[in-house]
């Protein structure tokens, strides 16, 4: 993974000193609320419903075990003993003290971490596939490009004060696990005929109150031009994006207002000026950054079907773990493992200080000291020897990280919602819990198969409800919490094209949600053909049968 050099380290250290000064001035009353708000946001600090919330950047979801131990330390020392894995692969702390935040940032800087640009109207943490570098279906490792973009976008002189937040995602695998179609900019890195790296550029996707699938505006961009091309897009957006209405300020609205063709023409005209400029990537720089992502020293191993087969026969839970939570690795004898945070009764994505330390230890003992955070709010251990899987599973199970539910109903993506977030229309965590309780039966979940349930507490869609096979959105009806349910959304992973869900009909009171979900699932089970997944079944039969059953009079 990327290691800071003296320049990276100096930058974050200077930034901590600057923010310490800003906090002190705010506390002394020398900075207005409006000024400090913008400064703290760009250093990761929100003021939430109950307390400040600090969002720590985990660049493209990759952490070392040392960094994860530091997060555990922060959870224990500055917070209430836990942290939250966000849907953007970051880590959030819900109870820091505003005056202690500079100390937290200083501690983070000692392990090459920061919270720069994790909120505010600026270029946010770049995200990618949680299996980048190890996925069996990878074409190009996306991480060096993410890191190049991270550096380029950090305190950019021109693009740190945009109309709205700006999210870039990069995918380099055959299957898109980075959901590039629903980002402000989505980049697909791929190989050309001669093995050179090319980039397809998608612009203007996004969730939120106006969900849009991104437009492809450039194909086959040579990698050297990546930053100058991004600069052209950002300049067009910074100059022409709307600033009068925050709900119309995302780049998707600009692309739509201009039309994809005129937007592309504008960007291309802008790019003509910047193309081949100083920001053009050099071969040396690409090689230098890629050098940080060289594979670790893998042992020459072979796949272990027998060892695993015996263990799977002996323990049905381990068998389920292998079926659901273990993914193919590009090296023989190794596996990628997802450790699910989705245990009934625990807010999705919440992990304790102790769990963080346990995961860090497993990363050292069973892998190469590296951990990932997935947008599904789980931990990923990217390099586990297959023969260690039974031992890892046993420890994970006793640590409360052994749920065998990856891709299943109970692996719910869920934003913090009304329990924490001041923007929420409704709570989301209790809804996730009610669903997990009602459909607790693991056999039933396995029988249902692949099913993404995503819950957001408001239109901002942090829980990605539009792209859940079943999406649940908290809405406010005359001061009461209601939930709108949509069906058929998909974020684009597993080879299915990204799609936005269709709203099934009038929204439900909280107590009615699980019954509605139950009827939706029954409709699927009754209509599915052989191994057809929920999504495929929905695509085949459409929304009508679901609607009919959900709203059929229960009396």
């Amino acid at each position, binding site marked *: 993974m990327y290691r800071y050099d003296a320049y990276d380290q100096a930058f974050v250290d200077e930034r901590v000193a600057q923010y310490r000064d800003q906090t002190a001035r705010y506390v002394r009353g020398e900075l207005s609320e409006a000024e400090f708000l913008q400064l703290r946001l760009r250093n990761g600090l929100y003021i939430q419903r109950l307390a400040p919330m600090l969002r720590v950047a985990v660049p493209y979801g990759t952490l070392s075990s040392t960094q994860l131990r530091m997060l555990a330390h922060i959870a224990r020392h500055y917070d209430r003993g836990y942290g939250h894995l966000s849907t953007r692969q970051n880590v959030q702390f819900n109870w820091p003290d505003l005056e202690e935040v500079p100390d937290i940032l200083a501690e983070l800087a000692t392990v090459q971490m920061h919270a720069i640009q994790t909120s505010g109207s600026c270029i946010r943490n770049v995200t990618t596939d949680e299996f980048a570098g190890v996925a069996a279906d990878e074409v190009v490792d996306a991480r060096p490009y993410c890191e190049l973009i991270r550096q380029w976008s950090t305190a950019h002189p*021109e693009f740190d004060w945009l109309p709205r937040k700006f999210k870039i995602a990069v995918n380099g695998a055959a299957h898109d696990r980075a959901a590039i179609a629903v980002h402000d900019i989505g980049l697909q890195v791929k190989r050309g005929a001669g093995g050179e790296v090319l980039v397809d550029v998608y612009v203007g996707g996004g969730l939120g109150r106006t969900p849009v699938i991104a437009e492809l505006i450039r194909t086959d961009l040579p990698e050297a031009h990546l930053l100058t091309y991004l600069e052209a897009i950002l300049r067009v957006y910074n100059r022409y994006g709307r600033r009068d209405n925050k709900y119309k300020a995302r780049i998707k609205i600009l692309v739509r207002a201009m039309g994809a063709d005129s937007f592309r023409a504008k960007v291309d005209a802008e790019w003509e000026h910047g193309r081949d400029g100083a920001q053009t*990537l050099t071969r040396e720089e690409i090689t230098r950054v890629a050098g940080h992502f060289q594979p670790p020293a893998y042992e020459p191993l072979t796949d272990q079907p027998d060892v695993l087969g015996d263990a799977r026969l002996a323990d049905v839970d381990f068998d389920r773990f292998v079926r659901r939570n273990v993914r193919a690795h590009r090296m023989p004898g190794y596996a990628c493992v997802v450790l699910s945070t989705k245990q009934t009764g625990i807010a999705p994505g919440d992990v304790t200080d102790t769990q963080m330390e346990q995961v860090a230890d497993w990363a050292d003992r069973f892998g190469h000291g590296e951990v990932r955070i997935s947008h599904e709010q789980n931990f990923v251990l990217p390099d586990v020897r297959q023969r260690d899987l039974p031992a890892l599973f046993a420890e994970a199970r006793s640590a409360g990280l052994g749920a065998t539910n990856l891709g299943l109903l109970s692996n719910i993506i869920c934003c913090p919602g009304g329990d924490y977030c001041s923007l929420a229309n409704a709570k989301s965590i209790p809804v996730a819990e009610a669903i997990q309780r009602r459909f607790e039966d693991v056999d039933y979940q396995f029988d249902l198969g692949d099913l993404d349930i995503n819950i957001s507490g408001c239109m901002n869609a942090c829980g990605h409800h539009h792209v859940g096979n079943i999406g649940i959105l908290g809405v406010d009806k005359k001061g009461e919490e209601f939930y709108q349910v949509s069906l058929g959304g998909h974020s684009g992973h597993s080879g299915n094209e990204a799609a936005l869900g269709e709203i099934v009909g009038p929204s439900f009171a909280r107590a009615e949600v699980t019954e509605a979900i139950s009827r939706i699932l029954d409709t699927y089970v009754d209509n599915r053909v052989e191994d057809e997944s929920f999504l495929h079944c929905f695509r085949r039969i459409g929304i009508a049968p679901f609607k009919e059953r959900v709203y059929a009079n229960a009396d």
Partner: protein
Amino acid sequence: MPTLIKDGAIAADSWATSAETEDGQRPLLPPDTWRATEGGAALLLDGDAEPHDDFAHAPLIAIHFPEFKDGRGLSLATLLRTRHGFTGDLRAIGDVQPDLVHYLMRCGFTSFVLPDGRDTAVALRSVNVHRHYYQGSVTDPTPLFRSVARG
């Protein structure tokens, strides 16, 4: 009194500090009026103005920031400097925030007017917050990866 800071130090000159011209000040003129005026007048632009080559003749261009968090003036300044040949004094006026001065300077501003109540010392310090930046800018077009040997 608003404070003018130019080339890294508190300064004074006779240009107006806003669209309003007070006694003894020379006005900042919007493009139409500016074009209709004899040479030597200063130009006043809003962040959403389109830049033009003839602006290069102005001795001073002031870009107005309606809110400090409105970054359009940063792109406009960059374009005036890098594409339209403007070499005169480029001045930020309006809601200039002292902690953000390093963004202004890197986009080619050479002076700015701090409104009343904003901390001059912070503004002067802000210019030197970082010794190095990753990306190129108007003042230093060479990105870090081209200017130093990195680890």
